[in-house]
């Protein structure tokens, strides 16, 4: 097992995609050639100025990057921390996810593939993928659990309007993990002409590292914006963790800054003790799922256990392997946030700042509220905290409306 410390200088993962004892490739041999092709296309692109220029232009002109770093003063006053919100909610399609899909769509084009497939839970990544596919004129098929296509009918319609085919998945628990299984099966059969556009920093190598590279702009921007705004690095950076892309995106630039504490907030559902949660690091154990070794919610036989969260985007029984490693090395701290605490933070941001956050991002806000007093006590002053506001809450209005009982009865 590796006892090396994480570093942002690009030494991790190793050539085979290992972050310490995590990561790697646990896939059918049929996919290895495609993963190797992707690995090589990604490494080439990372060193290729024309790719970087094209990607940067897309992020700027199409997605709206850099996103703002907004000093949320009324929220700050309420919670006793100077909160800087990284406004990924203002990106085109409403979340950090657009960065990943634009990067992978560019790679798809470079590899000469004409078809992309994706898995989606709430539909956010599906919508983002359908968006990029429309922009790049790619055929797009999105796998979505049949339970989720019903819960998220509006996003299904959005994907269809953008020209994507949405396939309801009726196997297993009919949610995100089964959609991912089905996408893998499609990929095994169509790997010649198809790129699997994974929606988070999970899956077999090179996906975890590749997705991180496409979203790391969040942290690169935030680091500079924070220096410009307060003249110093933040005391802490916080994010919600589903598969882990928005968290890695904002963490990565700060990994080599020892004074900056990194906090990942997992979906605690009804509370980790109830068994009804999606906190893979807090409540899971090391295992293999969806092509990688990481923390997994599983029983003693290694069967995946269903996750539960009010937030569809965090409702996944695994987590990206780099987070598993950041946890083991102690570089980042992971804590669960319950549905109830996340919804309280959702309401708090609505009322103090006039910003409706995604329920996913509300977990990061709730976690920040909970650590503010600890940090203040430790530092002897008000801490400066960058919170990754990974997405906006439009998609969650129905869920939140039901939760708070503000929908008119028919």
């Amino acid at each position, binding site marked *: 097992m590796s006892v090396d410390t994480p570093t942002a200088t690009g030494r991790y993962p190793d050539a085979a995609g290992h972050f310490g004892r995590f990561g790697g490739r*646990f896939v059918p*041999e049929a996919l290895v*050639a495609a993963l190797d092709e992707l690995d090589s296309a990604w490494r080439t692109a990372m060193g290729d100025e024309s790719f970087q220029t094209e990607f940067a232009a897309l992020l700027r002109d199409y997605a709206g990057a850099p996103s703002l770093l907004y000093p949320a003063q009324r929220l700050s006053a309420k919670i006793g921390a100077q909160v800087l919100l990284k406004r990924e909610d203002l990106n085109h399609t409403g979340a950090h996810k657009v960065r990943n899909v634009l990067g992978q769509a560019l790679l798809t084009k470079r590899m000469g593939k004409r078809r992309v497939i994706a898995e989606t839970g709430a539909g956010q990544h599906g919508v983002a993928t359908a968006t990029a596919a429309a922009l790049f004129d790619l055929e797009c098929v999105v796998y979505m659990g049949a339970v989720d296509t019903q819960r998220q009918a509006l996003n299904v319609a959005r994907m269809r309007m953008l020209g994507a085919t949405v396939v309801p998945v009726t196997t*297993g628990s009919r949610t995100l993990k089964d959609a991912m*299984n089905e996408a893998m099966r499609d990929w*095994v059969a169509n*790997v010649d002409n198809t790129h699997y556009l994974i929606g988070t920093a999970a899956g077999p190598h090179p996906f975890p590292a590749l997705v991180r590279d496409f979203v790391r702009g969040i942290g690169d921007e935030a680091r500079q914006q924070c220096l410009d705004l307060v003249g110093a690095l933040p005391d802490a950076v916080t994010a919600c963790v589903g598969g882990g892309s928005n968290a890695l995106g904002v963490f990565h630039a700060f990994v080599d800054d020892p004074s900056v504490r990194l906090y990942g907030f997992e979906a605690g559902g009804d509370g980790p003790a109830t068994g009804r949660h999606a906190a893979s690091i807090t409540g899971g154990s090391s295992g293999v799922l969806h092509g990688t070794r990481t923390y997994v919610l599983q029983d003693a036989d*290694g*069967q995946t256990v269903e996750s539960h969260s009010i937030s569809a985007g965090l409702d996944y029984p695994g987590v990206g392997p780099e987070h598993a490693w950041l946890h083991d090395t102690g570089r980042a701290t992971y804590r669960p946030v319950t549905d109830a605490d996340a919804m309280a933070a959702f309401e708090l941001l609505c009322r103090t700042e006039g910003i409706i956050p995604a329920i996913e991002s509300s977990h990061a806000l709730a976690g920040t509220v909970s650590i503010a007093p600890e940090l203040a006590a430790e530092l002897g002053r008000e801490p400066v905290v960058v919170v990754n506001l990974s997405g906006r809450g439009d998609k969650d209005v129905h869920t939140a409306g039901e939760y708070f009982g503000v929908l008119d009865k028919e």
Partner: protein
Amino acid sequence: MSRIGVAFDQARAEGRAVLVGCMPAGFPTVEGSIAAMTAMVEAGVDVIEVEIPYSDPVMDGPVIQRASDIALAGGVRVADTLRIVDAVAATGAPVVTMTYWNPVEQYGVDAFARDLAAAGGTGLITPDLIPDEAQEWLAASDAYGLDRTFLVSPSSTDARLRMTVEHCRGFVYATAIMGVTGARTQASAAAPVLVSRVRAVTDLPVGVGLGIGTGEQAGTAAGFADGVIVGSALIRCLLDAASLPAGLTALRELSAELAAGVRTPAS
């Protein structure tokens, strides 16, 4: 030589291919799966492949997924699988186990190898474990004298194919098509090419699987491979039947048809 190797040698001497029949452990129940596998042996299946049901079987099509779901819903545990291996091995047929990696990792790789060997299992087919990640399994299989069957695919490069085959023991599994398990009506053009690529680098027997479901298809595969691996078509006999006895009758009939198929290799 492993018992699987003996079965392949015998079949080769008879001028035919080995018939490998696959069933998920605990489908439709633990006792039902033992009855099914025993019926397959009695009807002419040479080698039984016991698949450990797994919650997220990414290499499997709808038939095996459904059967695995039924087995898991019935509460089958990995320990039951070992009991099934033990019972079926008692028929005298070699029993190989096919498993996704996580159940083995959670059982403990060394402990699993020890208990599988004690149950009379010959080794493992590992659809989502490639030799690159298999250090622990390589050591455990050596320690307990178990066979290792890794998969090769039409998309494998020559270098990977050679590397993968070098890590195999017992037999090599050639996946005939780019896709998941499930019977197909169309024969695969990629399969004979893949088998000859494997033969160019090893003397190990080569089994062909994915998509084979009829006696005729078995005969075609027997024309170029040492082993013919059938899963979904056999499982469907039980899934489609109104009762277990009716399913077992259908299973015997198809097993016999496939056994006749591997004895009439197409040339």
